[in-house]
């Protein structure tokens, strides 16, 4: 497995775990309270920060521990560009969604969470596209 494929796996797992943790905490905190009144900002920032740190640490560890080296070539760059392109589309969709929600004056909670979800989907689907390209072929 190439180093970039490992990185794609790490990014997908970290993004899913980070967002899963955030959703679990916010839902647990909500209880009978409406979601828009739940304190979510701190949790969101901590899970985003935690995911970034976990991603960096796992990338370093995978380079040191797992076999296969850290080399990168033209195929890796092409697959990376393809994955980023796929992921980027979700950021655009999320941004447009957040813009519309802001214009409709919806609560900040929904705007922030739409953007967060868009970033998570971007990371997860971009990674899935890369993994599929590595596994199934990339012409």
């Amino acid at each position, binding site marked *: 497995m190439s180093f970039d494929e490992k990185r794609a796996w790490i990014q997908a797992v970290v993004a899913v775990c980070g967002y899963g943790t955030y959703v679990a905490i916010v839902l647990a905190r909500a209880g009978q309270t409406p979601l828009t009144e739940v304190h979510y900002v701190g949790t969101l920032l901590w899970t985003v920060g935690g995911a970034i740190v976990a991603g960096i640490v796992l990338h370093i560890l995978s380079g040191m521990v797992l076999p296969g080296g850290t080399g990168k070539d*033209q195929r890796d760059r092409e697959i990376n560009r393809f994955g980023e392109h796929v992921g980027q589309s979700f950021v655009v969709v999320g941004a447009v969604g957040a813009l519309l929600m802001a214009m409709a004056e919806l609560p900040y909670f929904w705007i922030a969470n739409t953007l967060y979800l868009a970033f998570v989907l971007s990371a997860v689907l971009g990674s899935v596209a890369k993994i599929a390209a590595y596994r199934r072929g990339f012409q």
Partner: protein
Amino acid sequence: MAKATRVTNRIRALRFTHGEMTQAELADRIGVTRQTVIAIEQSRYSPSLEVAFLIARVFGVPLDEVFQYAEDEGEGR
């Protein structure tokens, strides 16, 4: 993305006839990773023209002895 390519290759056979050259050695000589050589051999990745020429040069054969493009009935339209 995963559309089957009609480009086939004889890299594995050529490696065998060139002193059973390993995938790692070929990768080293053309400047790519071993994973990329594996993907090219299994037709999961079409290399750039430059990499294709480099592979042919390593084996000392013309390009079309390494890579072939399968004929198709709809050819020549």
